[in-house]
């Protein structure tokens, strides 16, 4: 190998290593995948990340972005193996009777087996529509585990808040219903 060819090969190898290192630093510094939950904790109100997923009941799909500007949304991340989800979903079901005509209630069944999820809905009397997010890809964008996670989205598409304590449910429902 000639001296110039050897120098070129060494330069290429060094450039490759430096490039990969720069990519890693950039990825860590600009981690945009913090999730909606973290953004809310940071005092921001991000636009709800869009999804287009199949409904659990087989009646087509739900495209979250299509509701933007039309209806406020309550988004409930749940799974049939999640014990606390039963209580929260039942509270949402009850709230739906009061707000159902003004607010869209949507469940996101995540990291779950769809057959078990349908049985779970029947067993606990949950009637608001749910989509199936088997891989948990949508959940990750909203903040990841643990579940249940319940978010409130204003008519404009901005996420107003996440349910942390029980009192948040009536408070946020009133807020988004008026949006």
């Amino acid at each position, binding site marked *: 190998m000639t001296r110039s060819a050897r120098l070129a090969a060494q330069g290429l190898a060094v450039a490759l290593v430096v490039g990969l290192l720069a990519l890693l630093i950039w990825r860590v510094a600009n981690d945009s995948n913090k999730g909606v939950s973290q953004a809310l904790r940071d005092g921001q109100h991000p636009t709800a990340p869009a999804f287009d997923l199949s409904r659990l009941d087989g009646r087509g799909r739900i495209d979250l972005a299509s509701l933007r500007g039309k209806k406020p949304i309550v988004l409930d991340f749940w799974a049939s*193996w999640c014990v606390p989800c039963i209580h929260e979903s039942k509270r949402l079901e009850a709230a739906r009777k009061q707000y159902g005509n003004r607010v869209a209630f949507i469940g996101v069944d995540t990291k779950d087996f769809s057959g078990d999820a349908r049985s779970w809905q029947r067993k606990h009397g949950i009637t608001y529509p749910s989509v199936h997010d*088997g*891989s948990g890809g949508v959940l990750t964008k909203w903040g990841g585990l643990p579940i249940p996670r319940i978010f409130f989205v204003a008519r404009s598409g901005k996420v107003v808040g996440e349910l942390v304590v029980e009192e948040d449910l009536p408070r946020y429902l009133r807020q988004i219903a008026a949006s």
Partner: protein
Amino acid sequence: MRPLIFLLVAALLAVPVARASERHPTLNELEGEVMCPVCGTTLDQSSSPAAQQIKRVIASRIAAGDTKSQIKNQLVAEYGDAILAAPEHKGFGLLAWWLPIAGIIAAAVIVGAGAWRWSRHREPLLAGPPLDPALEARLNDELRRFDD
């Protein structure tokens, strides 16, 4: 030659075992090949409710007579590719299987070629001037005495 025959026999014996495993999978083996979607471990290392749910589904599919591929396909359809502990031997998954092997072969070729070039270009050992015959005779005597 003998190791080659041994490898060939081992490979031939492995084929019927793999076929039996494909047709009649056990819960134990699938627990080691399927991930728990909420814990980041395989099912056999988790007792979380999500893992228990998948174990129940796998057990019911085995009882229904499904093959290993059918069960895995059903799990992938529900949870996505990440539910499998190892990528499948097809499509893009092949890259994960063959890339490391290709890397090892490439590294071996590079190291081998380097060693070959290094051995060819090595400077020959410098031969010194011939010894004085008297000194050589004395050295031989010393060595002989040392051997005795």
